[in-house]
């Protein structure tokens, strides 16, 4: 009886909890209201508007956490935190060149009065490139101090000296300028031919004029017109009292910059620079030094990891002359599970980069109705999720195998499922926002292969490439099925390949769970199984979907391709890709397929160094570690970029000379090193050739390109973000309705 009562009580409690949940869910949605109608202007959202009144505050929600590294985000490391970079964007201004809404670098006429560029030809046949910039007078930092040439030169000089190396382990900021090696070697005491106190390639010509000379390692270069991009900083922030001088041989730093500490016996300690401690300290000093950007860091709350930015009233505008009109901008981290609720409750005003069906639909729900308190803007992400192959060993080294895998699943369906209907599929390593893509769009639509799902096409690709054997060397019979094998040629029978094997049979689509799938020797020949070892990161929804749609879907097995799945940390995944022991790589290439995502912060992208050309051993060894796919295009061996006679050709000349067989390495180098700066027509030809060749060799299989949604409170006027112009940029153009 008691038990029955107890059960009834439990049932009642559960029902009550359920009812409360349902009733509260049905409660009328009273989201914050705002008068946002796009602003008191007829101009399209995101246009320059300096008629707004200053006031109000906006809270930007970020999915990544701030670390407090706002002055020089990521300096001394391999990468910078996205959130820290946003704060830097808002607090550093008057750069000579700035990235516009389309990801292109444009001259900032608010800061730059004039600029000139010239190519200098030297007696040894090399060329250097000089950019001379005169800045406008009267530009002021947040504290009222005028910005002069020194503010632009300070960072370039300081971060090229051993002092910066001591502080941050890196001093390579000026490495593209003439005289860097000598200036970098100078420690204040060792002046010689190989170590000079002057930085020959940097000149302080007057209080408002300076020049930079790019060395011949970095010129000619298609993007040379961006070499003029330099940002100003408070001199005291960087130099801590040292001065910049120029006697005609190059800018240099005063002697006190190189002062060293002394030991107990009062002897100077070589390399123990006093100013290194200054750099370490000033990097995280938010309040002592002035800011050059539209906002200043008013408070950094280390407890809640939140930055509060205050308007810089001295800021006179960005490259378009746009000034800030929001009094206070707060930047804080959001929790993915509750971010929409935070937006709805007014705890944040902007959520950027929403993706996936659930999040986007929830955000769109907030924007519905005439009096909706929220608005949205969406754009194609400049990046995509992909399968990435290592192309130097295993079956994945054969383009036909990679193509066969692409034929084995429906990428459209994959993208739709993963992005919840808010995604697209791309057919190459481009952003649909790239100008070169847009210029070639029709050509790509006609010629890029989409690899529509087809087991027959997969089988044919494999047959053509010689995957026509069984493990014992007998002919493969489609009717019987099983895993295909290929007889390796002498060149293909590398040590890695003859020892190649499936890492696991349990987590795989391999038909015989008791068999060891590995390269076998039959007579004098080696036969490699068509088994791909796939490594993916843990708790990754893309991996889960790939398991369903590719690994276990049946098409792979039907085509005769085996696949094993291994999960691990993302660090381990990077370790396997970059073959870095420090990231857990074991020393033997094991996995040749990975899934991850890639993206671009700018529309200016240099595809060179992504490929390895095994026709030149030195270059191969040097750049192997920089190549994410480790792909050697056979065309490169026949027509190599490293043959100087082949360099400097136009696209048409190169096509003619190579017989129409241009390899990935050649194209990627020629695209930026043979194309004259500013010749977009020529660049677009190389770009198209690159995409077509890439699409054929398929070192990656693009899986999905998200459509990003930024959802914001309607009180924010004139908000317009783009893939290259995030909320931290777009907020400059905005105002708060309540303050108008």
């Amino acid at each position, binding site marked *: 009886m*008691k038990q029955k*009562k*107890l059960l009834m*009580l*439990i049932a009642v*409690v559960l029902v009550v909890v359920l009812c409360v*949940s349902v009733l*509260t*869910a049905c*409660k009328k949605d009273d989201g914050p209201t705002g008068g946002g109608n796009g602003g008191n202007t007829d101009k399209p959202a995101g246009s320059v508007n300096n008629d707004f009144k200053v006031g109000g505050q906006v*809270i930007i929600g970020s999915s990544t*956490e701030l*670390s*407090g*590294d706002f002055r020089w985000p990521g300096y*001394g*490391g*391999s990468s910078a*935190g996205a959130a*820290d970079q946003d704060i830097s964007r808002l607090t550093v201004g008057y750069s000579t060149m700035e990235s516009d809404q389309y990801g292109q670098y444009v001259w900032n006429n608010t800061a730059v009065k004039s600029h000139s560029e010239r190519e200098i030809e030297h007696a040894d046949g090399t060329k250097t490139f000089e950019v001379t910039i005169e800045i406008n007078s009267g530009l002021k930092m947040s504290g009222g101090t005028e910005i002069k040439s020194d503010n632009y030169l300070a960072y370039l000089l300081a971060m090229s000296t051993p002092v910066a190396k001591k502080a941050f*382990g*890196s001093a*390579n900021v000026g*490495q593209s300028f003439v005289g860097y090696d000598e200036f970098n070697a100078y420690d204040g005491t060792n002046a010689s031919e190989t170590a000079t106190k002057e930085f020959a390639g940097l000149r302080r010509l007057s209080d408002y004029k300076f020049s930079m000379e790019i060395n011949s*390692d970095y010129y000619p270069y298609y993007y040379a017109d961006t070499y003029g991009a330099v940002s100003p900083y408070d001199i005291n922030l960087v130099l801590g009292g040292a001065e910049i001088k120029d006697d005609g041989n190059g800018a240099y730093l005063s002697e006190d910059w190189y002062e060293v500490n002394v030991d107990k016996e009062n002897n100077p300690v070589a390399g123990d620079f006093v100013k290194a401690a200054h750099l370490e300290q000033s990097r*995280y000093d938010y309040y002592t030094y002035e800011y050059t950007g539209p906002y200043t860091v008013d*408070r950094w*709350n*280390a*407890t*809640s*990891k*939140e930055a*509060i930015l205050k308007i810089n009233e001295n800021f006179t505008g960005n490259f378009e002359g746009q000034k800030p009109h929001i009094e*206070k901008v*707060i930047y*804080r*981290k*959001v*929790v993915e*599970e*509750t971010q929409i*609720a*935070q937006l*709805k*409750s007014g*705890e*944040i005003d902007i959520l950027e980069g929403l993706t996936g069906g659930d999040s986007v639909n929830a955000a769109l729900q907030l924007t519905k109705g005439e009096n909706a308190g929220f608005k949205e803007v969406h754009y194609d992400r400049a990046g995509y999720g992909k399968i990435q192959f290592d192309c130097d060993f295993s079956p994945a080294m054969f383009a036909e195998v990679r193509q066969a895998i692409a034929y084995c699943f429906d990428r459209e369906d994959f993208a739709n499922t993963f992005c919840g209907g808010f995604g697209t599929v791309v057919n190459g390593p481009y952003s649909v926002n790239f100008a070169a893509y847009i210029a070639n769009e029709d050509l790509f639509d006609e010629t890029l292969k989409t690899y529509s799902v087809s087991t027959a096409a997969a089988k044919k690709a494999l047959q053509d490439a010689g995957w026509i054997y069984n493990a014992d060397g007998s002919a493969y019979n489609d009717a019987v099925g099983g895993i295909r094998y290929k007889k390796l040629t002498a060149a293909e029978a590398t040590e890695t390949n003859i020892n190649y094997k499936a890492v696991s049979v349990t987590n795989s689509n391999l038909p015989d769970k008791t068999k060891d799938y590995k390269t076998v020797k039959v007579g004098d020949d080696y036969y490699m199984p068509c088994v791909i070892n796939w490594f993916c990161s843990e708790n990754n929804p893309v991996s889960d979907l790939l398991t369903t749609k590719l690994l276990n879907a049946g098409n792979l097995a039907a085509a005769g391709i085996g696949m094993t799945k291994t999960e691990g*940390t993302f*660090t381990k995944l990077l370790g396997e890709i970059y073959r*870095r*022991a*420090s*990231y*857990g790589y074991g020393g033997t290439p094991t996995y040749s397929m990975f899934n991850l995502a890639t993206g671009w912060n700018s529309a200016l992208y240099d595809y060179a*160094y992504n490929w390895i050309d095994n026709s030149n051993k030195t270059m191969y*060894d*040097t750049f192997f*570690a*920089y190549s994410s796919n480790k792909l050697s295009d056979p065309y490169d061996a026949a027509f190599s970029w490293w043959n100087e006679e082949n360099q400097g050709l136009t696209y048409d000349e190169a096509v003619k000379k190579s017989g129409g067989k241009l390899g990935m390495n050649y194209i990627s180098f020629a695209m930026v090193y043979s194309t004259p700066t500013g010749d977009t027509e020529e660049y677009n030809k190389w770009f198209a050739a690159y995409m077509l060749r890439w699409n054929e060799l398929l070192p990656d299989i693009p899986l999905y390109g998200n459509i990003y949604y930024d959802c914001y409170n309607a009180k924010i006027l004139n908000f317009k973000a783009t893939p290259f112009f995030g909320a931290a940029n777009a907020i400059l153009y905005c105002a708060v309705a309540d303050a108008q």
Partner: protein
Amino acid sequence: MARYIAKRLLYILLVFILISFLMYLIYNAIPFDRARWLADEQKEAYKYDPEGLEQLYQEKRTELGLDKNIVERYLMWLGVMPLNGKYNGMLQGNFGVSYTNIQQPVVEVLKEPMKNTIFINVFATVLALGITIPLGILCAVKKGTKLDTGVQVGSIIGYSMPTFITAILFIFIFAISFGWFPVSGQETPGSTLTGAARFFDRLYYMALPLIVMTFCSLGGMTRYVRASMIEALSMDCIRTARAKGLKERTVIFSHAWRNALIPIVTLVIGWFLGIFSGSIMIENIFGLNGMGRMYIISLNNNDFDVVLTLQMFYVIIGLVGNLVIDLIYGLVDPRIRINK
């Protein structure tokens, strides 16, 4: 008593050395080379100079002492052997460097999360004990009544429900639907409050996580106190006390509760020691910058100096906590007092 404590402290020292060496060995067995990692961070700068990169790697190995054997490295880490001519280990207050986001001394990295964790845990512990102990006693005294049954059902739900479900449910009800509390965060965004005003603002933001933490911990302790009290109330001495005509209040709190306290004291002290440990689930869902999150982030980033420091800290807390528990046993129960 002093001798006993001295002996226990000596044990603590020995156990600490043993555990610290084992932990150091384990983390050094993980295939992760910090020197290589640091050198690789500069890979782009050394793109045209692979030899320079290798030289940098060797410099980093020397700088970190990785060119020494494991025992030497352990002794340097402890601070009883010099690293590059300088004693600079744990004993000198150097707990290493954190490499997550920005390179900072471990102590700096742990300062804020530790403060936050203690702030929330102190309240959660006091609140939970303040509710569970009286509730457990009440349920034991009113055993079998509707109140007891109701509390048993409620506590089993709280006990069984995963923390993240409770957290999401409470956020949905109290933050989204009723709007009584903020969804996430630690203080009002952009707040410039100071002193008491800031304290109460933080408390307001901590309220919902506190409620969730308390709710989730009610079940276990309430049932434990109840069981302990029921056992104590059935003892002969209680019957004797009642037979003597003592007031029921005196019987419960002076006689039964004192006897029930012995097993409970271990848990209660454990809870107080636990104020230094964060809750990964709660911190992640409510966006709190606490120890649980820090711990998991450090593990994911191979930030072993942080992880080792934390583990050593928890080892010391655990060892000292056991000593405290043993000493408090003596206070609670004179029968097992050391200097009796």
